C-alpha cells in the first residue's frame, strides 16, 4: 500500500473502498516507528490510532454517516490541546500537562472523523525557527538529516514531508508554519488572522498568531481550511467566512492578476539559489497570464525588530501563568520567598523562552515602553497601512518564504541575531494579519526552497487559487528517505 498520497487522495481511496483506514493507519504507525527514532518529529503517539481506524471502517461498512476525513491520519503540533492528551509545548514546564479539553480545531476534526496519530515537535512554546529550542531535542530535516527542519512547527513539516501523516496542524506567529514548510518542501499556509479559531492553541503572541495546515498539496490545504475555518464563540477574534468552500474553483488560474514583488524581501543577504528560484517562479506566473512588478514596503526594514518587541511583550504576559502554582513540578517551597520561588519555578524554561521573557519584562515597562513597545506598535500600524495600499494596486504579493537555505543543526543556535533575520520575509503577514502561503518550489543541493504568496485579508480563496496555479508548474523529486 502506498502511504505517499495526498489527504484528498486518501479520502477518495477510503471512500471508494480502495483502501481501508485501518490498513493505512497501521502502515503509517509502522512507518513512524521505523523512521521517527532518527527524525524525531513526534513527542507522543496515539496508541489507539489503529483501533480508531477500525471504528471508521466499521462505520463505512455499515453505511453510517461518516465525516469528510474518513480516518485521515493527522499530526498535531504539541501546543494545540487534545483532551486527555499531553500537551507539552516542547517545554519541561508543561512536561506533565494533560489538556482537559479539546481545541476548537480538534473538535472540528474529530467531528469529521480525523485520526490524530500523535503530537509533534516544536521550538519550546513555539519560540524559534529550527526546533533546536525544543526541550526534548531537535527534529531532523528528512531531506538531509544534518539540517534543521525549520520551525517552530518543525515536527509538523517533518511528519508531512516524511509521510508520517497526510497532513498536520501547526501554528504561525512569525512564520512558524511557512518556514518549516519551506525547509521541508511541504505546503504551509497561514490564513487571515481570525479565520481559524485559536481556542486551545497555547498562546505565545496571541494578537498575531494563527493555526495553519501543513500539507502535501495546495488542494489539501484548502481542504483542511474547509474543515476548520469559521466563527467560533470560544474565540472572540474569529471572523465569519460564510462557510466558504475553498476547494471550489481552486483551479481558476491567475490570468490577469497583478502580483507585486516585494523589493525588501529579495535584497541584501539573499541566497543566490533562492533568488533564482524566486525569479523563475515570477516568470512562471507571468507565463500563466499574471503581471508582476516590483513594489517597495519600506517599513519592512523595521518589521523584525517590531515583531520581536511585540511577541516578547505578549509572551511575557501569556507565559506568566507558569508560576508552578497550578501546574508544573514538585519542589519543597521551604525557605523560598517570592522572588527566589519564582526564579526556581521558572528554571524549567529553556534559554530562548527565558531570553524572550526577560525582553518581555523590559520593552513594555514604564519608562521603556515609549522607546520600544509603543514604537513597535507604530511600525505595525504603518506597515499595515503600507501593505493595504499595496493591495489597492496588486492582487497578490510574492517573495521567497525564507531568504536562505536550511542550515545545519547547531550552526546558528548560538547566533540569535542571525536566527532573527530568517524571519524577515514571514513576519509581515503576521504583523498585518494577512494570509500567506509557502509552496515547495525548488531543490538546491538537496535542500528545499519555498516561494511565498501573500494576499489581502479574507482573500484566502484567491491566495489558494494562485498557489494552486504555481504549484502546477513545479515537479519536484521525492524526499530521499
Amino acid at each position, binding site marked *: 500500500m502506498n502511504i505517499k498520497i495526498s489527504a484528498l487522495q486518501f479520502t477518495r481511496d477510503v471512500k471508494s473502498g480502495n483502501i481501508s483506514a485501518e490498513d493505512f493507519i497501521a502502515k503509517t504507525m509502522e512507518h513512524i516507528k521505523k523512521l521517527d527514532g532518527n527524525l524525531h518529529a513526534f513527542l507522543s503517539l496515539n496508541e489507539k490510532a489503529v483501533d480508531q481506524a477500525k471504528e471508521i471502517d466499521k462505520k463505512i461498512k455499515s453505511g453510517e454517516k461518516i465525516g469528510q476525513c474518513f480516518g485521515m491520519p493527522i499530526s498535531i503540533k504539541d501546543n494545540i490541546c487534545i483532551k486527555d492528551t499531553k500537551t507539552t509545548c516542547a517545554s519541561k514546564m508543561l512536561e506533565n500537562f494533560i489538556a482537559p479539553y479539546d481545541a476548537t480545531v480538534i473538535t472540528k476534526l474529530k467531528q469529521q472523523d480525523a485520526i490524530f496519530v500523535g503530537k509533534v515537535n516544536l521550538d519550546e512554546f513555539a519560540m524559534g525557527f529550527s526546533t533546536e529550542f525544543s526541550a526534548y531535542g531537535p527534529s531532523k530535516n528528512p531531506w538531509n538529516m544534518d539540517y534543521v527542519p525549520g520551525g517552530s512547527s518543525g515536527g509538523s513539516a517533518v511528519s508531512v514531508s516524511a509521510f508520517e501523516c497526510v497532513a498536520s496542524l501547526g501554528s504561525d506567529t512569525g512564520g512558524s508554519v511557512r518556514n518549516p514548510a519551506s525547509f521541508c518542501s511541504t505546503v504551509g499556509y497561514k490564513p487571515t488572522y481570525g479565520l481559524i479559531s*485559536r481556542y486551545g492553541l497555547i498562546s505565545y503572541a*496571541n494578537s498575531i498568531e494563527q493555526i495553519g495546515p501543513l500539507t502535501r498539496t495546495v488542494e489539501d490545504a484548502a481542504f483542511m481550511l474547509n474543515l476548520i475555518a469559521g466563527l467560533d464563540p470560544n474565540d472572540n*477574534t474569529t471572523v465569519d467566512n460564510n462557510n466558504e468552500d475553498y476547494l471550489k474553483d481552486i483551479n481558476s488560474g491567475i490570468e490577469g492578476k497583478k502580483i507585486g514583488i516585494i523589493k525588501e524581501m529579495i535584497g541584501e543577504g539573499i541566497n543566490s539559489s533562492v533568488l533564482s528560484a524566486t525569479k523563475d517562479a515570477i516568470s512562471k506566473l507571468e507565463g500563466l497570464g499574471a503581471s508582476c512588478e516590483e513594489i517597495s514596503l519600506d517599513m519592512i526594514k523595521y518589521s523584525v525588530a517590531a515583531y520581536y518587541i511585540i511577541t516578547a*511583550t505578549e509572551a*511575557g*504576559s501569556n507565559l*506568566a501563568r507558569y508560576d508552578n*502554582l497550578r501546574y508544573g513540578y514538585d519542589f519543597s517551597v521551604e525557605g523560598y520567598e517570592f522572588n527566589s520561588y519564582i526564579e526556581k519555578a521558572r528554571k524549567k524554561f529553556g534559554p530562548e523562552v527565558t531570553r524572550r521573557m526577560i525582553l518581555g519584562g523590559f520593552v513594555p515597562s514604564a519608562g521603556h515602553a515609549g522607546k520600544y513597545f509603543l514604537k513597535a506598535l507604530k511600525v505595525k500600524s504603518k506597515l499595515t497601512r503600507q501593505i493595504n495600499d499595496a493591495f489597492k494596486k496588486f492582487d497578490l504579493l510574492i517573495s521567497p518564504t525564507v531568504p536562505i537555505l536550511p542550515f545545519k543543526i547547531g550552526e546558528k543556535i548560538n547566533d540569535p541575531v542571525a536566527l532573527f533575520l530568517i524571519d524577515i520575509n514571514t513576519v509581515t503577514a503576521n504583523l498585518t494579519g494577512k494570509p500567506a502561503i509557502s509552496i515547495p518550489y525548488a531543490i538546491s543541493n538537496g535542500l528545499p526552497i519555498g516561494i511565498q504568496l501573500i494576499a489581502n485579508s479574507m482573500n484566502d480563496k484567491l491566495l489558494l487559487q494562485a498557489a494552486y496555479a504555481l504549484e502546477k508548474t513545479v515537479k519536484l523529486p521525492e524526499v530521499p528517505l
Partner: protein
Amino acid sequence: MTKIGLEIHSQLTKLESKLFCSCKANYREFEPNTNICPICMGLPGSLPRLNQKAVEKATIIAMALNCSTPEKIAFFRKNYFYPDLPKNFQITQLNIYGDTSVGGTGILMVGEKKIRITRVQLEEDPGRLIYEGSSEKNLVTLVDYNRAGTPLVEIVTEPDFENPREVREFLNILSDLLENLGVSDPSLEGAMRADANVSIEGGNKVEIKNIGSFHDLEKAVHFEITRQQSLRSRDIPIIQETRHWDDKRKITISSRSKEEDLDYRYFLEGDIPWIKIGNQVKEKLKSEMPESISSKKQRYISKYGIPAQVADVLSSDKFYSDLFEDAHTKENAKEIANIITTDLMGLVDTREKRAASKLKPSHLQEISDSIQSGKITRNSAKNALYEIVKTGKKLSDIISELDLGNVSDESELSVIIESVIFEEPQAVEQAKSNPQTINYLVGKVMQKTKGKADPKLTLDLLKKKIR
C-alpha cells in the same frame, strides 16, 4: 484642606455568568474550586469569551453616573503576580491611551455637593485567598478560584470628599443607585468594596487598602486623617505610601510591599476585539434603564402627596419601592407607603429576613383595604403583617385565626368602656375638666381589647358617657 478620593469595586451580581466564561457569577453557594472551568482558571490555550451583558450593565452604570461613554471600548492586561490571579494578569480597562473604558468623567450629586467621577471600568475579579493556621509557623494560604472572573465594575472618584461623613453619604447613595439599576446587590457579602486615598493640606497622598466594609471605610478614613494630622503637628513628614486597614486593631498600617512601585506593563488584550457601543445601543440601554431614585421620589411626592421623608425612604430602597410599585393604586398609595415605611421596615431589615419574607404586594393591598374600610385597626394591621411575613397566609385567614377583627359593636364596646370608667374614677374626673386627657382612657380601652377597638367609635362613646 483634607482631600479624600475613592476607588469602589462593585460586582455585577445580577448577571448569570462570569465575565469571560459560562461559570456562575454567583459563586457564593459553591464548594471551593467547583465553580471553575479552563477559561476562568486560565488553563493553557483557553481564551476569554466576553459576556456582552456585562458590558451593557457596566455601560448603564456609567450612564447613571453621568459619565461620558466612548464609541468603542477596549480591554487591557494588567500584569502582576498574585496567587489569586490564575493568569497572572488581570483583564481590565484603562483610559491612558484614549478613553476606552466603559465610562469617562462623570458626576454624582451628594445632596448639594458634586462628586466628580474619574472613570468607570469593567474588569474581572480575582479568586479568594483564605489564610488558615494559628501561628506564623503553620500558616497556610488556601486559594478558592470560584470568584475568579466574576464581573467587577470599578468606579474611581476625584479627591472631592472633605470628611468621612461625605464618604459615607456618597457610598450610601451609590449603593442605592446600583441596587436600583438592578445590576448589583450591595448587601451581598463582598459585593461592594472600596479603597480610599487620603491627604491633608499640603501633604502626600496615602492609599488605604483592604477595607472590608463601608462601615470600616469611614473609620479607616477617620483614623488616617487623625494620624496624618498628628504627624503634621509634630512636624513629621507624611510619606506617600499604601497602608492596609487592620480590621482587628482598627488602625492603618504601612504595607511592606511597595505596591506603588509595581509596573503593570499594561497593553491591549488582543483576545478581545474592540467593542463598538454606538448611539443606537446607548439609546436602547437608556430606554431600558429603570427610573432613577430621585425621579421616583419626586413622583411619590407630587402624584400621591406622600411626605418627602417617607418618599425618600421608599424610593432609595429597591426592595421597598418594588413592593410599593406593585401594590399601590392612586387611592391607597399613601396608606401603602405608610405601612411599608412604618410597620414593615423593622420586619425585613436584613437581606436574610428579606429573602425569607413571604409577603406579596397583594397582602399590602388587603391590609390597606381593611384599614380603610375599618375592618382592622392600624395596630392590628401591624400584628397581621408580622404573621404574613412569617407565613404568607391571606389576611382574612390571619384576622380570624388571631381574632384581630375590630371591636366595633356598640353594645360590646359599651360594656368595656363602662368597666374602664369604673376602674379609673380619677382619670374620668380629669377628663371632664381637661378633655385632652381623654386619650388616656382610650388607651385603657385599647389595652382591654388588645388594640382592636374601633378608635373613632371608642372616643365617641367615651365622650358621651363621661359628659
